């Protein structure tokens, strides 16, 4: 079973599929596991919880998200530390889980504030302020204090960067396109299969120059009648076929 999110259980789809946004982070997921299992946060069975954490992030497809992996590694490290023989004199022993417990408690406290903010914010969303406001006269005494924060200045920098086409702002790594090479690849794929899709030709982690090369190759080959490009409906993946005519020829 998927743990209901603390906040929006009613939004949960009944299916096993859970969006990444369902948990706000590894601590959220960890707390949800602890609650599901009705565990005492001060005495977490770390081996079991580490195992469940790993299983869950793999189910949720979060096992490539750095934040979750870091937590998984942390849990495994604590698990290993728990297995170390304790030194003589128990009082010298520090529970390897202590730091995790502290963080969970802190996170927990913050979630309480989130609940409060969410409640109040939702109430406030039901009240509208005045929208029509008379045009204020633009006369401000020059000796009035200047209201200007660092945040405003930085926001202005951001606006400038976003709206400017400043050639010196971009670092261009020259990389020649390889259209001929891409044409060879496309021909090779179409020699084996009658049709292919875009991602058969371009790896999902392709560099921009590779993508451009394949694109130009396809356009060139289509122009020369070597292949046909079709998209059967909007946003469908593009189908690339050997051209029947050139094939017959």
């Amino acid at each position, binding site marked *: 079973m998927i743990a209901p*999110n*603390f*906040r*929006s*259980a009613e939004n949960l789809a009944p299916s096993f599929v859970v969006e990444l*946004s369902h948990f*706000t*982070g*590894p*601590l959220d997921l960890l*707390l*949800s596991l*602890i*609650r599901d*299992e*009705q*565990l*005492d*946060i*001060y005495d977490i069975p770390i081996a079991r919880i580490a195992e469940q954490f790993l299983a869950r992030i793999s189910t949720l497809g979060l096992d490539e998200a750095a*934040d979750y992996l870091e*937590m998984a590694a942390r849990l495994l490290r604590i698990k290993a530390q728990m297995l170390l023989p304790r030194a003589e004199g128990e009082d010298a022993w520090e529970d390897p889980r202590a730091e995790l417990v502290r*963080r*969970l*408690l*802190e*996170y*927990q*406290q*913050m*979630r*309480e*504030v*989130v*609940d*409060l*903010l*969410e409640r*109040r*914010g*939702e*109430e*406030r*969303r*039901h*009240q*509208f*302020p*005045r*929208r029509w*406001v*008379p045009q204020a006269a633009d006369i401000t005494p020059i000796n009035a204090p200047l209201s200007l*924060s*660092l*945040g405003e200045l*930085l*926001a202005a920098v951001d606006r400038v960067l976003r709206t400017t086409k400043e050639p010196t702002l971009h670092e261009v790594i020259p990389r020649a396109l390889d259209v001929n090479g891409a044409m060879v690849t496309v021909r090779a794929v179409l020699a084996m299969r009658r049709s292919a899709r875009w991602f058969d030709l371009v790896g999902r982690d392709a560099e921009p120059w590779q993508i451009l090369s394949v694109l130009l190759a396809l356009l060139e080959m289509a122009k020369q009648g070597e292949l046909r490009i079709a998209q059967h409906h909007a946003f469908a993946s593009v189908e690339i076929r050997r051209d029947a005519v050139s094939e017959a020829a």
Partner: protein
Amino acid sequence: MTPLAKLLEAALFAAPRPIAMVALAALDVESSLAAVAAALDELREHYDVDGHGVELVEQGGGWQILTRAEFAEAIERAQVAVRPQRLSAAALETLAIIAYRQPIGRAEIEEIRGVAVGSVLKSLHERGLIDIVGRSEGIGRPLLYGTTSQFLEQFALRHLEELPRADELAIALRGAGNTAVVPE
């Protein structure tokens, strides 16, 4: 209504954001702060007793007239005004941490939340809910963030002290397992 209450009403109707007490007092140099407070009470009572579509509230560091919640749906349905978008859970978490720990740097927020918060900070900043309030003295002198008056306004808070103190927050975590988590 008294002339001062009328003047305050006129001013509050002309402002999209809360007006601070001192600014309200500046409307009429003859009136004391006490007189302004009394006139605000008069206005609030008038709205409540007479049955108006709006009410007077104190929040966000000042006074503001808002429509009553019961009319929100009709107003939105008729597309007279739109409600602001809800914040994501990630944004709320980040905001909660900043509200309690301000001034606070990015690294410290990430330590508490356990995830990167760069883009969330940007969107909170764009919505005017947080601002950069300075730089830490620490290594690299990181930027420090704090909440704004708009934050108070959007969450109907009069001031930050209205949030429960850290020690007032229930840490109902010790003991029985099923009390370990936030109440639903």
